[in-house]
């Protein structure tokens, strides 16, 4: 529940504190890597089983997509489920039971994650150490292999926020922020002990980052200042998702999704 609800800007300024609520249990063999919300339900990628499963909020399996060669950090936008297939360098689009190939004017090598906002597509191109940003069919490459500011080292996830691109610069242990021309604007998380930054999710107040190897989720405000560190009941987090005042965290080393709610 919001403490301040009379003005939108108050909601934006509010610093939320999150508390562990529960775990959603998944089928025993499932190892959830990434989550996407689709209406009242979720899809999660289960690369160990070469599949995606659709579940309700209690974890009950509703549907599946199989024979995907390591589905990674998925996205859902306007009725379409976007699935990067790591081993085949493909990105698939699932809509109304039909599968098609995403029209991308650059070839990724091991696509790890993506974000689609209208006609803007951003792809974390893991082995090429860059982000492919495609706007109305026009491609810009963001970053190149390296460890300096503006360079990337095995990017795993990417999110478009306004006119900025946030990249989970996984093995540089940081989040990097770029503009649409690829200009590096900011580095976040380097001083916070991140050890493999693998996913980013935004809410009104800021964003969450998975600190994969430390089994933590870090909560930042929109300026990139650390607000809270979540550790309870998190086991090797590989994705985060905000939805309806809830925070969902995938536990890749077990068959569960952890749910946090505002304290």
């Amino acid at each position, binding site marked *: 529940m919001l403490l301040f609800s009379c003005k939108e800007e108050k909601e934006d300024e509010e610093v939320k504190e999150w508390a562990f609520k529960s775990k959603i249990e998944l089928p025993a063999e499932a190892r959830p890597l990434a989550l996407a919300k689709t209406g009242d339900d979720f899809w999660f990628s289960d690369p160990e089983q070469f599949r995606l499963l659709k579940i309700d909020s209690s974890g009950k399996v509703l549907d599946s997509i199989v024979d995907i060669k390591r589905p990674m950090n998925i996205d859902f936008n306007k009725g379409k489920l976007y699935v990067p297939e790591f081993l085949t360098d493909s990105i698939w689009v699932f809509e109304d039971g039909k599968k098609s190939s995403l029209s991308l004017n650059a070839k990724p090598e*091991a696509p790890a994650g993506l974000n689609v906002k209208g006609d803007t597509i951003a792809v974390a191109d893991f*082995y090429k150490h860059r982000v492919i940003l495609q706007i109305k069919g026009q491609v810009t490459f963001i970053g190149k292999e390296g460890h300096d500011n503006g360079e990337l080292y*095995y990017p*795993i996830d990417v999110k478009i926020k306004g006119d900025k691109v946030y990249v989970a610069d996984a093995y540089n242990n940081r989040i990097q922020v770029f503009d649409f021309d690829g200009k590096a604007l900011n580095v976040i998380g380097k001083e916070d002990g991140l050890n493999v930054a693998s996913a980013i999710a935004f809410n009104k107040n800021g964003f969450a980052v998975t600190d994969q*190897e430390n089994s933590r989720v870090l909560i930042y405000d929109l300026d990139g200042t650390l607000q809270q560190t979540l550790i309870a009941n998190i086991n090797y987090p590989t994705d985060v998702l905000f939805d309806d005042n809830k925070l969902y965290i995938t536990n890749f080393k077990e068959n569960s999704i952890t749910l946090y709610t505002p304290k």
Partner: protein
Amino acid sequence: MTINAQTDKSLLEGKITIEVDGLACPYCAYGLEKNLKEIDGVEGIEIDINEGTALLTIAKGKQISESTVREKIKEAGFTPGTIKKESDE
């Protein structure tokens, strides 16, 4: 040195298990899988993230060199450990 396919111990066939450090991260593990699949003669790969091993099945009648396997592992950013030949059954 001339390599004799009949006797050279660096040529691998059948099933082999490779120990690889740092396989816990799924992105890295699947990256290794991707690299090893590129080796001509590799028919199947099973990556065990928990055990930190890769089990390679080499196609019948094919042999691959140990150095090629080690090189591919290094290309994926890992240090190869022990390579063990499994029994054929």
